[in-house]
């Protein structure tokens, strides 16, 4: 986070609540990086991620008056971002490409022991699995919170996470012969 924002966070937030354009821009500059990163990790394309950033900050500008400061500002902005990104996934109904691969060539990866780097493997995961992995393992959301945001059950979130890790392990060539 931008150190100059951290030093003046209270003053910037107070001004942002009044609709002060410079303060709203300071808020954007402080959080555009993490917001984009989260959006891009969940969405398939940079265009979708950029749309999520815009939707997130429209919402921030509109609702900043209602932010009461009972949680961290990043926690508040992050929950808006995650919600917008998941909404976009639902809207776009991306096809889970890793599932498709499994159906078409079920033995290919077991045979060839593909070795991908983590970035590529993460990108290859289906949308839902990747979102769950990122929200749970990196952002630190609980399965209950993820289930709530996705409109699914806690067991759905847990099974998506386990399935995603099984695939990552395989694609990264981490499997150990029994």
């Amino acid at each position, binding site marked *: 986070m931008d150190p100059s924002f951290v030093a003046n966070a209270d003053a910037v937030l107070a001004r942002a609540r009044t*609709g*002060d*354009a410079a303060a*709203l*821009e300071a808020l*954007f*500059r402080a959080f*555009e*990086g*993490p917001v*984009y*990163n989260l959006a*891009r*990790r969940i969405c398939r394309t*940079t265009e979708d*991620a*950029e749309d999520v*950033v*815009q939707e997130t*900050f*429209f919402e921030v*500008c*509109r609702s900043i008056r209602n932010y009461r400061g009972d949680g961290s500002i990043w926690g508040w902005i992050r929950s808006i971002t995650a919600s917008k990104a998941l909404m976009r996934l639902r809207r776009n109904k991306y096809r889970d490409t890793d599932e498709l691969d499994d159906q078409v060539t079920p033995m290919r990866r077991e045979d060839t022991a593909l070795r991908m780097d*983590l*970035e590529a493997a*993460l990108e290859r995961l289906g949308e839902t699995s990747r979102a769950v*992995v*990122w929200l749970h*393992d*990196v952002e630190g959301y609980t*399965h209950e919170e993820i289930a709530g945001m996705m409109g699914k059950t806690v067991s759905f979130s*847990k*099974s998506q*996470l*386990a*399935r995603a*890790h*099984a695939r*990552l*392990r395989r694609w*990264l060539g*981490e499997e*150990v012969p*029994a």
Partner: protein
Amino acid sequence: MTHLTMDQLVALRDGGSEPGTAAARQHLESCAQCAAELDRLHQRIARLRALPNLRPSRDLWPQIDAERRRVRRGRQARWMGIGGLALAASLAGVAAIGPGVDRADPALAEHPVEGELAAVRERSQALETMLDAYNPDARVIDGQTARVAQALEDRIADVDQELQVTELQREAPDQDQVLLDLWRERVGLLDALVDVHVTRASNVGL
């Protein structure tokens, strides 16, 4: 020997308390392969967290700011419509409102401030209409012009807030004069904004 599944490993990593977790933990103590698998899970998550932060390839703020201003301008226009109706209602019994407010009207002569209010508000609406017709949000402007326009719009927003509060306090003494001063300031700012957008555009042939 049956090794732990990924579901069990993930649950263990979460410190889960589901049925079977205690047995899985016990298994882990005696199975080097599953212990190594859990260790790899921890390492994978650590590597996920260490992935570089992705950054947008372009500055997204101008679009966000333009949309924010468009929405705010819409709100202001709506409020000005409501404020205008309230003002019109308050003036209904006093003066004829419309183009060419008759300053010689005896009713207005008794309430000169209200006559001025009607005139200045009319001018404000005319300037708003001119700006809407020009649609500055759809125009490309240089950075300096954008900063000046932004400062003017911000001040107009401040004046609008003060106007809203003052409208609600009109029963209080001297509020009409305060209201008139605010409307005058609003017109002055709008004049400057029109000048920044429309006049400048005409001068450079846009």
